[in-house]
């Protein structure tokens, strides 16, 4: 069976299961075992918007080069869902393998030339060795153990270190050590069966290497939640929505661990599950106005509901942080699939002339860093700030460099007048541009009476007083535009990766498309096509973006939405030449693979667009 050239540490292992069958822990176990073997890995959930019963997949990509994008190729398929056998078999690449539960033999049905079908009687083995008791979860132990058994089979077939799996089981069940042995027994059942019946290892397999030193596995939402914790956010308000919910769950867990008064047990945080997204936004504004660092995690439909308050915060100049974990739109769209489709919504949320800084993390590490940056920016600029993540980053485990924290960090609270300041000055003017940067001074409730003012979304002058006077109104909104210019100097710069040689071809990408772009650039370079790459990290765009556009004859703009929203923003904000900007669009709800970029760029070369 181990025929042909060995394919080591460069494969896609895909597991097809039934939603709700308890396969998540088995799949996590597999990925972590590979990670501990030193092999760079990423795992992607492809799951339905459904409680249970529908097909769900988990893809593990091992890449000795460290590439983390999704690959539209499957080397080893574990087909645990009879409903999708045909589809799963069709997805396996030439020379690949399909492993299935042969308790009910289907070899006659599961036939495809060039694909090795390996039947393992997983259910049968487990049923013969375990009672049908229920353990921990609602699923019977046999169902759970069936999943653990295929982990064991893969250990034998793909040379995944069984001792590491055992260690991981011991860590997982540290609080319930009695569960370690039955789980390992299931691993052994699968392992032994594979060893006895197949020629192990397969051509596609793992081997220890040293590609994961200094790295961690973490989901973007957990990393963002850690960022909120480390930034000193104390008030979180939210309304449950996929795929942002796990951000607040993680924040609550971290707060329970780190933010309880050791003596009294009192919480140094307040997390409120609001009645809807409108209320969540109102709570964030109320808390931000009162001087707390406050945030809300949501997704596109939530931003739609929050828009009224977002415009209010823009005009009244209240710091607020909004995490938009994007999912597929429009409307309810596909709640469990990924896109980058809320760019325009976030950039200009609400009625009237509004503009908001938007941060664009590319991986969980940047979710952590940009969460902190978002609070600093929101308070420095006194305005709503968006962190635009997506389902791919938010809900999948990514391998990233260990998160770092500098204990000398101090939050930028912006221009807040203290009681001493207020005693010293003659008069406080809420919306006066004292420093010429468009950012006024603010006071917090409960401060010196001289600092009191009225927050109002209606027309106000630079002193904060109600006005319908044409000039006074315009003075305020013109200053807000000046503040936007200041914002350009404060947001994170775009990151340039230059090609080895000179080229007048550029690629612009951002967010979760980064991994695919890096891989595509390497593949293109190997084919002799060089391109410079600018990774956008924020809106508004800084000078370096303008420079990049000026310096390149052709710029491919990669984004995961139908309508080329980023290209639109570049044209709107920088007056970029539309003829120069070529869209590469991927918007089917699955994370973008590098093939899309490579194919699009080479297609242009073929057509002579790129010399």
């Amino acid at each position, binding site marked *: 069976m181990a025929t042909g050239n060995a394919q080591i540490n460069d494969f896609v292992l895909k597991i097809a299961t039934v939603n709700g069958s308890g396969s998540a822990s088995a799949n996590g176990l597999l990925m972590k075992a590979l990670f501990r073997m030193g092999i760079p890995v990423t795992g992607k959930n492809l799951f339905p918007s459904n409680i249970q019963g529908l097909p769900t997949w988990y893809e593990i990509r091992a890449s000795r080069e460290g590439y983390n994008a999704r690959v539209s190729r499957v080397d080893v398929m574990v087909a645990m869902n009879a409903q999708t056998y045909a589809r799963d078999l069709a997805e396996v690449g030439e020379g690949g393998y399909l492993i299935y539960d042969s308790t009910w033999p289907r070899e006659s049905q599961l036939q495809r030339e060039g694909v090795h079908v390996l039947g393992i009687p997983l259910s049968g083995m487990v049923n013969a060795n375990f009672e049908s008791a229920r353990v921990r979860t609602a699923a019977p132990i046999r169902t759970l153990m069936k999943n653990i058994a295929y982990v064991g089979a893969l250990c034998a077939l793909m040379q995944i270190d069984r001792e590491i799996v055992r260690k991981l089981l011991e860590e997982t069940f540290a609080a319930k050590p009695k569960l370690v042995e039955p789980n390992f027994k299931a691993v052994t059942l699968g392992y032994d069966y594979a060893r006895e019946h197949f020629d192990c290892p397969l051509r596609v397999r793992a081997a220890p290497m040293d590609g994961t030193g200094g790295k961690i596995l973490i989901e973007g939402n957990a990393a963002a939640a850690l960022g909120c914790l480390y930034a000193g956010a104390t008030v979180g*308000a939210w309304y449950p929505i996929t795929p942002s919910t796990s951000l607040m769950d993680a924040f609550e867990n971290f707060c329970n661990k780190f933010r309880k008064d050791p003596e009294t047990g009192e919480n140094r*945080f307040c997390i409120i599950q*609001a009645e809807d997204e409108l*209320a969540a936004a*109102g709570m964030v*504004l109320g808390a931000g106005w*009162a001087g707390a660092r406050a945030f809300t995690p949501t997704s596109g439909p939530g931003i739609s509901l929050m828009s009224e308050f977002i415009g209010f915060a823009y005009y009244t100049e209240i710091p607020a942080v909004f995490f938009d974990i994007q999912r597929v739109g429009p409307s309810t769209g596909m709640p469990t699939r990924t896109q980058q489709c809320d760019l325009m919504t976030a950039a200009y949320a609400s009625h009237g002339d509004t503009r908001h800084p938007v941060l664009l993390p590319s991986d969980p590490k940047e979710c952590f860093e940009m969460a902190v940056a978002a609070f600093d920016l929101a308070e420095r600029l006194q305005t709503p700030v968006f962190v635009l993540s997506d389902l791919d980053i938010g809900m999948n485990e990514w391998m990233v460099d260990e998160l770092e924290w500098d*204990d000398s960090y101090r939050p930028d609270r912006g221009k807040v007048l203290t009681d001493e300041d207020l005693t010293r000055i003659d008069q406080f003017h809420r919306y006066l541009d004292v420093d010429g940067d468009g950012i006024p001074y603010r006071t917090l*409730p*409960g401060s010196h009476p001289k600092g009191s003012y009225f927050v109002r979304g209606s027309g106000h002058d630079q002193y904060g007083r109600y006005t319908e006077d044409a000039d006074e109104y315009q003075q305020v909104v013109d200053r807000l535009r000046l503040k936007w210019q200041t914002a350009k100097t404060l947001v994170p710069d775009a990151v340039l990766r230059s090609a080895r040689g000179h080229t007048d071809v550029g690629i612009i990408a951002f967010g979760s498309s980064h991994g695919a772009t890096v891989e595509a650039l390497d593949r293109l370079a190997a084919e002799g096509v060089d391109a410079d790459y600018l990774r956008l990290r924020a809106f508004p765009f800084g000078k370096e973006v303008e420079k990049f556009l000026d310096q390149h004859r052709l710029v491919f703009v990669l984004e995961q939405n139908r309508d080329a929203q980023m290209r639109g923003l570049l044209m709107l904000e920088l007056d970029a030449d539309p003829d120069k900007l070529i869209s590469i669009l991927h918007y089917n709800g699955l994370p973008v693979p590098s093939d899309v970029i490579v194919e699009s760029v080479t297609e242009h070369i073929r057509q002579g667009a790129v010399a």
Partner: protein
Amino acid sequence: MSYITKPKVKWSGRQTNELGLTLADYEGGLSTLCAGCGHDSITAALVKAFWELALKPEQVIKLSGIGCSSKTPAYFLSGAHGFNSVHGRMPSVATGAQAARRDLIAIGISGDGDSLSIGFGQFAHAVRRNLNVLYIIENNGVYGLTKGQFSASADPGSKTKKGLENRNQAIDPVTTAISLGGSFVARSFSGDKEQLVPLIKAGLRHPGCAVIDVISPCVTFNDHEGSTKSYAWTRQHLHAAIETDYVAPSTEIEVDYAEGEVSDVELHDGSVIRLKKLDQDFDPSSRAQVLGHLAAAHERQEILTGLLFLNEDLPSLHTIQGTSRKPLSRFAFDELNPGAAALKTLQEGMR
């Protein structure tokens, strides 16, 4: 929303409270509501209540939504921070502000349009969470700012100034708040300062959500046929260069009657409401009894006023949340940040 600063008039012999502040120190900007508006009477009651309690204005936050009622925070306590939010969403902003600064005294002013239609959900959830706020509903049954549409508290059978009849049921904020599990629910009349001031004081002191529904007549009702101050009459008798809005000035309606008594009050449009002050032996602690009393009064076409329901034992938002007694926005950064070493240890579990 007034932008006219009210002149501070000083005269000898003015009374001061424990803080040495006069009533004028608790006032705000000049009201731009129609002369005779009940809301201005409520403002006056608020000024008196805050003065009598000798609260520092800067220790108070006053919040509102949108509407005539929501303008009123501008007319009292100019030394307090104010927040005029969006329509119907005052409660959520107040919740966030309370989450950050539980040491400040929060007062939310809303109206029947603001709280019983667009903001009905937020009103309900502020009550449900027992947010520590004095929540005043200035209730006139009509949308004043958009010129006279029915609000959700308008009685069936009442008519707009255009003569349209309301056929919908009315939402009563009092029975609603009690049903929702409110901890302090009261009703009063804008012109009854004798009753309203003590209710406001009690509401401010209540450690939870104190809802006071204040019936507050709107002078724009004063538009019925035959009135010499109606829109129609004014249009017919004035020859204006352009057609503009006109609201006839009127005087605020005041009432004064004792506990247990019934008082008929004539509103600006000539209609009459019948208020009944609770008897001294009324027990506000039994929800079932209170709801029964309210229903019986409704049958008699009487509106019960006074402190209708009280449950001082109900835990408030921060008790439920287990929040620190020290206000959250007062914590030093070091008290909130776990530091680099903790982050390193935490990540051991991510390998």
